[in-house]
């Protein structure tokens, strides 16, 4: 009986073997659940039985043709023998009647309820203290299409979707080896969300798997609606701004990381797969780096590093240079900036701050709004902020260039999560620049580096392999060296790079 205040499934019922009685128990449990359907029947007027299933999550055709029809059409004297034992009945049903590849006998009430809730069909038969659970899962799914957040020019266009089994198959299709392991867990007291931990045996560090399992097991939460819940609950430093796990919608990216000895966590009902441990430079990589020619890919990686610096520092450099260090701007440029700033009534900091806030608002508005309205936002933003504000003399045009360059730089981040961190950090940077000039920027950068150096993701330092430095690891960080030049067994190499992860046994609960 589900008691108030106690949100866990806990049942005292035991299967009695009497189909009518058991059915009554189920009906008590699923009271007021209109999506649970019951189908009672008699097999050849002798055997009473019933089917219990969730409407909308099962394929009714399977139930009708492969279960019901078989039970109804069976030979008349199949159950007529009076001396039938429970074993015999099970045997008959199992081997002669039901057309299904996935079924099993379950004794525990609790388990049966879980099976029913995840879309299986339960078959109750008189005289049996077990229930046959038959898989007939089928519900409406989104088609596999290109991931919206990680589009590539060259590379597979498949993205994960919300169904766990489909996602698993997408990974398995890329690694046809028995070494690819998938282990199932359940998280969420009410949501009972299925989670699959996947890794490549022999490549992954055993301790890492243990730690991942350990952290997942410790999760105490009512429901998991998105991978973000899990990420926050298992990461090492939830107080940090930086994402410490890799989130991806692309199966090829998951597989690439599994090959490097990482662990993937696939969560039901979300297209986002978590990859741990996540490092800073990994978050700056795109799967396309590995598909394009390596010279191009390497130069694009440098471009990304540049954009990291720009998106973090450009507005604050503008503030610091124009208000503290005018001597550092080339004379002619200074004259142009000074001329543009001549009519601006605000200090450079206020000017930059307002523009950055305006830009961030525009971006946020653009994300949330439906597409037709989004266009209106961009027109308003481009016109009002870009042009009218400059013409009215409220902001200077060099600042508009600075803000838009910062904006473009922040769009280059392949990981949206990392981009968010830098978007936020820009503001403290600007405050530091406005109060201490370049010195303030330097201090903030130092603080930031100290933080980044101090955090670890599942035992792996965040800035690996740059700090601690592993020369061989650099082949795939700042540049992408040709496959010919990389170690033939890339995964083995990477395992070495990660070293022996220092596993932090975190105390306390994940809440």
């Amino acid at each position, binding site marked *: 009986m589900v008691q108030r205040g106690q949100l866990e499934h806990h049942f005292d019922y035991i299967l009695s073997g009497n189909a009518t009685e058991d059915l009554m128990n189920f009906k008590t449990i699923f009271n007021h659940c209109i999506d649970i359907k019951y189908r009672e029947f008699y097999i050849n007027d002798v055997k009473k039985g019933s089917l219990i299933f969730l409407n909308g999550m099962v394929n009714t055709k399977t139930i009708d043709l492969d279960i019901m029809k078989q039970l109804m059409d069976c030979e008349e004297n199949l159950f007529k023998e009076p001396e039938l034992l429970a074993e015999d009945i099970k045997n008959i049903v199992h081997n002669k009647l039901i057309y299904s590849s996935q079924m099993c006998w379950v004794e525990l009430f609790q388990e049966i309820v879980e099976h029913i809730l995840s879309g299986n069909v339960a078959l109750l038969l008189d005289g049996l203290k077990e229930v046959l659970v038959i898989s007939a899962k089928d519900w409406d799914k989104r088609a596999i299409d290109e991931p919206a957040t990680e589009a590539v020019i060259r590379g597979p266009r498949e993205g994960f979707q919300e169904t766990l089994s489909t996602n698993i198959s997408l990974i398995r299709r890329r690694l046809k080896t028995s070494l690819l392991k998938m282990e199932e867990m359940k998280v969420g007291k009410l949501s009972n969300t299925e989670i699959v931990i996947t890794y490549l045996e022999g490549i992954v560090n055993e301790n890492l798997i243990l730690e991942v399992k350990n952290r997942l097991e410790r999760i105490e939460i009512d429901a998991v609606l998105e991978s973000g819940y899990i990420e926050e609950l298992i990461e090492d430093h939830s107080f940090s701004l930086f994402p410490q796990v890799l989130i991806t919608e692309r199966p090829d990216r998951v597989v690439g990381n599994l090959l490097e000895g990482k662990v993937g966590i696939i969560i039901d009902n979300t297209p986002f797969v978590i990859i741990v441990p996540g490092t800073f430079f990994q978050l700056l990589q795109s799967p396309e780096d590995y598909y394009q020619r390596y010279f191009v890919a390497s130069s694009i990686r440098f471009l990304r590093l540049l954009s990291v610096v720009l998106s973090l520092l450009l507005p604050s450099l503008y503030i610091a240079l124009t*208000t503290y260090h005018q001597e550092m701007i080339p004379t*002619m440029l200074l004259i142009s900036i*000074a001329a543009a700033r*001549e009519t601006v009534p605000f200090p450079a900091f206020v000017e930059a701050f307002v523009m950055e806030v305006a830009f961030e608002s525009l971006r946020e508005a653009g994300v949330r709004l439906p597409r037709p309205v989004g266009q209106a936002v961009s027109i308003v933003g481009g016109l009002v902020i870009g042009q009218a504000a400059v013409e009215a003399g409220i902001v200077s045009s060099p600042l508009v260039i600075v803000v838009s360059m910062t904006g473009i730089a922040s769009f280059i981040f392949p990981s949206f999560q990392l981009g968010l961190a830098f978007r936020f950090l820009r503001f403290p940077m600007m405050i530091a620049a406005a109060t201490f000039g370049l010195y303030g920027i330097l201090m903030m950068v130092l603080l930031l580096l100290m933080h980044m150096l101090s955090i670890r993701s599942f035992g792996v330092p965040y800035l690996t392999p740059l700090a601690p430095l592993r020369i061989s690891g650099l082949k795939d960080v700042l540049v992408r060296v040709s496959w010919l030049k990389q170690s033939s067994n890339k995964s083995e190499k990477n395992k070495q790079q990660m070293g022996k992860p220092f596993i932090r046994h975190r105390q306390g609960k994940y809440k």
Partner: protein
Amino acid sequence: MRKQVILLFTVIAMFGMTGCWSRVELNDVAIVTATALDLADRNKIQVSIQVLRINMNNASGGNATVLFSEEGESILDAYRIIQKKIPRHLNFAHNRVIIVGDKLARSGMSDVIEFFSRYRDARGNSYLLATKGKAADLLKIGPSFEKFTAEEIREEQKAKVIDNVSLREFAYRLLEGGIEPIASQIQSVPSSDKALTSSNNDKKKQNNEWSLALVGVGVFRKDHLIGWMNAEEAECLLWFRNKVKGSVITTMLTGDKRESGKLSVQIMKSKTTIKPKLQEEKVSFDVRVEMIGDLYENTTKLSTNSLKNLETIQLAVEAEIQSRIKSTVKKLQLKYKSDIVGFGRMLHREHKKEWNERFEKRWEQEFPHVKVNVTAHFKIIGTGRINDSLTWEERDFKK
């Protein structure tokens, strides 16, 4: 948690308590582009600064700069008086040109160097120039190409047509034994015939009828200006420093009818080595100049197709180089007795012991008497688009 809250408050308080001590908005800055220094009466110093007047539409004409001039006991004193007249904070960091009038330069540059090496806003790489007459007058001349005069002077200096020094280099030369400072000489010159005929007043000067030109080099002994070298000699000084950027040598050829005429070559590459030789008590220097260049003008009837003729040309140019260097060195030794080339420095580098023992103290007396041997090597690497001059008949050429 409590610790974190305290930390947060400390950080916030830190930002509030800075007082923004050196923060200046760009709207409140007046950019100084050039400084002119003159000696005024009663030993006062006259500082003139050219300040940019920034407005949105510079293109609409009008002068982009304003000249402020004030006398004071010291440079900073005058500078402060100017600051009182300007509503904006003077920013000296973009000053790239310092012009010193000859009165001040002759009376000694040490005060100027002292101030500008101490003043932390001043750039070490700003150019130091000297002029005959008042330096302040030069800053009144309007620019013809750039936005303001200082930029024009800077560009002219960068072209390296004649030898120049930065503030830092001037100080180094002053401090180092065996080399004396110089400063490029800048004068106002009429840019057209009209300027000469019209009355010479300030208004005309701004109307682009006068322009600034580098005409030579001021020669210093210690920190005193003692005289001037003309442009040709100043170019020679560049050869000594291996800093040639497209200098042109023109020489006359005399000989039979077909051989006489003018030859101009442009130097592409130049390398000068000065080798001091110490024989017993006597010091002598071997100057070896190696240049390669293109033939640019040839009014002789020498056919450039023949190697023999090219050799003749090369020899003529070599002779010209030699004589130029010799006359420059002679002028320095006899007229000014100032070693601005740095022969003493070379001697110091090569023969440290002897320099310290014998020459350091009395190099000034020694320098006019040292022997300087010059050898020049010139090689033509190109003769331009044509071989023989087009205007002559084939038979006229000397093959």
